């Protein structure tokens, strides 16, 4: 009788121990569900402040997407995209990986469209091809969203090291020249030129060395600076 009692007791204890592990989230969620419910009933959900804004273009947009730097903004981009391939190539990820990137503006009522082009075209010897095609990109955007304010973001500077490396003509002198072309395209097409270069450059005219792991693509801090500039430009344009 005594042995049976001990055996049953041991078996019960082992069952409680062996079956007690749950996925960590289940253990945590039991304690936080009440707090979460309380928060939901007392605090409204955060607004997607830039849901009426689309960022369209090259790999510079990836950090805006990663860090949600313009909360709620649509990010239509592809690494390596240029003013030609925007009519041909789709996004690599997201809901639609079939439609060419420029086509993602169709049927959407964006109030602001910010274009990011020029970095992948620095190596183009025919500069007129770049400026004329950029004009066609703007025309396509206006056809899709006739009431949108169009913004053309200047290319940011690259670091001194990246500039010296000069891969595919990526150096700060050529970036400045390209930005002058973008400013001209903006003026000729009724778009807003956004001087990203001035906003991100250090006193030496370069992107600070710690701003980007590759000296080209700004990480969180400098993407936030860039986003702040865009927010100011959007607020100013929308107030007119």
């Amino acid at each position, binding site marked *: 009788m005594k042995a*049976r009692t001990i055996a049953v007791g041991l078996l019960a204890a082992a069952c409680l121990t062996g079956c007690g592990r749950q996925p960590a989230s289940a253990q945590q969620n039991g304690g936080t569900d009440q707090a979460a419910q309380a928060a939901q009933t007392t605090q409204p959900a955060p607004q997607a402040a830039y849901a009426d804004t689309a960022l369209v273009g090259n790999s510079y947009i990836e950090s805006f997407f990663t860090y949600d730097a313009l909360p709620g903004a649509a990010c239509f981009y592809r690494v390596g995209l240029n003013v030609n391939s925007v009519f041909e190539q789709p996004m690599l990820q997201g809901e639609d990986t079939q439609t060419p990137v420029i086509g993602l503006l169709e049927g959407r009522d964006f109030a602001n469209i910010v274009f990011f082009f020029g970095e992948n075209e620095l190596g183009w010897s025919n500069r007129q091809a770049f400026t004329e095609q950029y004009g066609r990109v703007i025309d396509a955007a206006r056809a899709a969203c006739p009431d949108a304010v169009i913004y053309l973001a200047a290319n940011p500077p690259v670091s001194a090291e990246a500039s010296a490396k000069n891969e595919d003509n990526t150096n700060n002198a050529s970036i400045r020249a390209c930005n002058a072309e973008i400013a001209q395209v903006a003026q000729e097409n009724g778009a807003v030129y956004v001087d990203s270069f001035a906003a991100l450059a250090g006193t030496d005219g370069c992107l600070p060395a710690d701003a980007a792991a590759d000296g080209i693509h700004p990480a969180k801090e400098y993407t936030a600076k860039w986003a702040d500039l865009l927010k100011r430009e959007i607020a100013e344009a929308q107030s007119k």
Partner: protein
Amino acid sequence: MRRISKQIAAACAAALCLLAAGCGAKTALDPAAARDRLGEELSFTDQMTDMDTAGACRFYSVDPSLAADGAAYVGSGATAESAAVFEAVDAAAAGEIAAQLQAFTDSWIAGYSDYKPEEVPKLESAVLEQDGVYVVFCVTADNTAAKSAVRSLLHP
């Protein structure tokens, strides 16, 4: 006879104890803690940022209804490097998450082949492991070491 029956009963009880303890011994992961551990142990060249479940699902185009919890560590866009730990709602959902992460990898290989071909080897050797409801994914500067670290995480 009674003593032998008691001994048999005790032996059976002991065997059941061992079996019950063994059935419950599955690795339990907290995705955020696991992400932090991988962030410390793995080799990254990019400036990395933490992401919560919603951010991780958005970044990797993972269906959020499949994930009970998740955490990621993603690069700035300067490289293709990232790491993620997902806890799926069930094992079948974990398989779906793994498939979506593979699709993500395949699309990035296609995109980076022209844009930054030096990143393609990292993507081609990406670590993708599933164990039960958990899925771990890494693209790092040293995926050989990452594979060992992930195996150690899932099978301590």
